[in-house]
């Protein structure tokens, strides 16, 4: 995962963002929904109606360019821009909103991990695999990691430790409740 070096901080001006300005026809709805899903999966900041943004790097720029292409193919119009928030405060707000959105996703994962803890061996293994994938996808769109990320990761990995210990395989280091 690429790190973004443009977080607004004291002594630093706001960083560079890549913006997708787009308009998709209301009908047919299938491509419009596909585009909406794609933007959601990328974790964009919805800056306004038809304006989405991500911290700029080679990958985010490419991703928004592809979505722009898809908008054009769907009969809409799209443009990709590089821009800086005019103030550091505005960028902080944006970052905080994105972090809060990811935080809610991490918390949902942590809740599901907690719910799976007392399930049977097979169900727990399945939950572990699914939640690890979910975490990986959330992390990919996580540009301003919130504290909930580590908590979710720990909750998911606890399922692995528990499984190993219970089935008598190599227990995770330090998790020697049974050995």
């Amino acid at each position: 995962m690429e790190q973004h070096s443009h977080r607004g901080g004291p002594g630093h001006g706001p960083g560079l963002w890549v913006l997708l300005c787009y308009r998709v026809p209301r009908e047919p709805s299938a491509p419009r929904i596909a585009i909406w899903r794609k933007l959601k999966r990328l974790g964009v900041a919805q800056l306004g109606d038809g304006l989405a943004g991500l911290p700029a790097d080679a990958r985010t720029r490419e991703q928004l360019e592809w979505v722009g292409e898809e908008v054009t193919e769907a009969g809409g119009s799209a443009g990709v821009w590089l821009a800086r928030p005019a103030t550091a405060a505005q960028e902080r707000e944006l970052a905080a909103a994105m972090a809060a959105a990811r935080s809610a996703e991490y918390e949902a994962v942590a809740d599901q991990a907690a719910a799976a803890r007392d399930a049977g061996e097979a169900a727990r293994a399945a939950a572990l695999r699914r939640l690890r994938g979910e975490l990986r996808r959330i992390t990919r769109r996580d540009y301003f990691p919130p504290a909930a990320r580590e908590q979710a990761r720990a909750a998911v990995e606890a399922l692995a430790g528990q499984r190993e210990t219970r089935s008598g395989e190599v227990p995770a280091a330090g998790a020697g409740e049974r050995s």
Partner: protein
Amino acid sequence: MRWATRAGVHIDRAACAWLIRRFIDSQAQFAFVADPAEVPAGTTAFDIRGAELSHHGADCSFETILRRYELTDPVLWRIAQAVHEADLDDQRFDAPEAAGLDVALRGLSMVFADERVLELTGPLFDGLYEYYRRAMLLGREPA
């Protein structure tokens, strides 16, 4: 024939270049450009904004090339699933190997120039092709 794609080759472009050289144009020469406007005249662009051989709808560029050149080999379409998931990770296909391919290609692109990445990934895709081919014939994972 001359072909052009975006510089900073990653999974989709590496796979496309292999596909082109192996199944479409054995004499293919590749140019790497930073911007779609820099695509040299007389070259066929792929995996670059505005090119015909690019992402279309839900397809990544590898899938687009398979369609446009009417390559129906099921082994290539199996590779396409892995490339699609490594590039887009939208869970359209079940290809758990995609995460590993993605990391390997990202790493290579950090330490080697694009031409070298293509040299190194060619044998990798040859191997994947053989692996999936055997898997399909056997109906299970080959040894």
